[in-house]
């Protein structure tokens, strides 16, 4: 088999779900600015619904990436190799910790990857909730647009940082 199941799950986590979340958050941030209307102006049902669905998609994709990362991809990453094993292939954390030049990829990069995505997921969910509940007025209500924009912007920065760190980790110690 060209790709192992663990490798495929890692790609699904990193490329499909996390990548999809990044695209959806970017689309929502762009739409929030591009589709903004003057204060109090009527918002067409189509515009409101479209924005709401982009924001909801971002939240759903991000939660799937976070939960899949924590409960499916992370456990085999952190598995402890049997005592005395010389070939650490298949034990990414052990590979990183065994080499001082790669150690930071676990103690810094992976530790960040463990926690920060949860912050982004909670913020994006709040943004998606606002986008959905206030879909008939949000695009014409500056204060709600700013609140939503702040949360999506913070999420975007966090997810981009985490994604980059994930690429570094997976390049050096892939789940195979």
């Amino acid at each position, binding site marked *: 088999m060209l790709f192992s199941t663990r490798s495929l799950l890692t790609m699904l986590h990193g490329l499909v779900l996390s990548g999809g979340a990044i695209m959806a958050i970017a689309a929502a941030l762009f739409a929030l600015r591009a589709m903004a209307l003057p204060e109090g102006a009527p918002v067409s049902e189509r515009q409101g619904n479209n924005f709401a669905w982009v924001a909801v998609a971002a939240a759903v994709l991000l939660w799937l990436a976070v939960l899949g990362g*924590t*409960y499916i991809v*992370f*456990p085999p990453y*952190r*598995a402890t190799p049997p005592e005395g094993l010389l070939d650490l292939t298949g034990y990414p954390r052990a590979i990183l910790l065994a080499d001082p030049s790669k150690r930071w990829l676990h*103690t*810094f990069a992976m*530790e*960040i990857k*463990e*926690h*920060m995505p*949860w*912050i982004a997921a*909670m*913020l994006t*969910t*709040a943004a998606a*909730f*606002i986008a959905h*509940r*206030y879909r*008939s*007025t949000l695009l014409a*209500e500056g*204060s*709600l647009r*700013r*609140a939503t924009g*702040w*949360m999506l912007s*913070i999420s975007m920065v*966090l997810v981009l940082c985490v994604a980059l760190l994930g690429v570094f980790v997976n390049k050096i110690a892939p789940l195979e």
Partner: protein
Amino acid sequence: MGTMNEGAGARAAAPGRRTNGAAMAATLAAGIGAAALGLFVLLNAAGVYSAPSIYPPAGGLSGRSTFAVVLWLAAWWILDQRWRERDLAPGPIVGWTVAMAAFSVIATFPPVWELF
């Protein structure tokens, strides 16, 4: 929170307009959830409290994240019950949310753990 509920920035909802209380509840709750996660991480790094592992293969992360999510959802429910019919000044609420998210980012930044 009194200033958030009834401060000078609070306003009456225009007829037919939905109050912003539910949005503000979701916003602040997200900040509280983020701060809770940061606090659990800091307490763990300081050796003061380690959340029990909910799913052993994922280690302590499963406990810390689950507890933070429970606190986030509880805060959201409580705030939504209190604020959903109100119109609130968004500035302080968004400010607190950003501050709590920033705290959480700092708290989950590994070099900070070396201070303990």
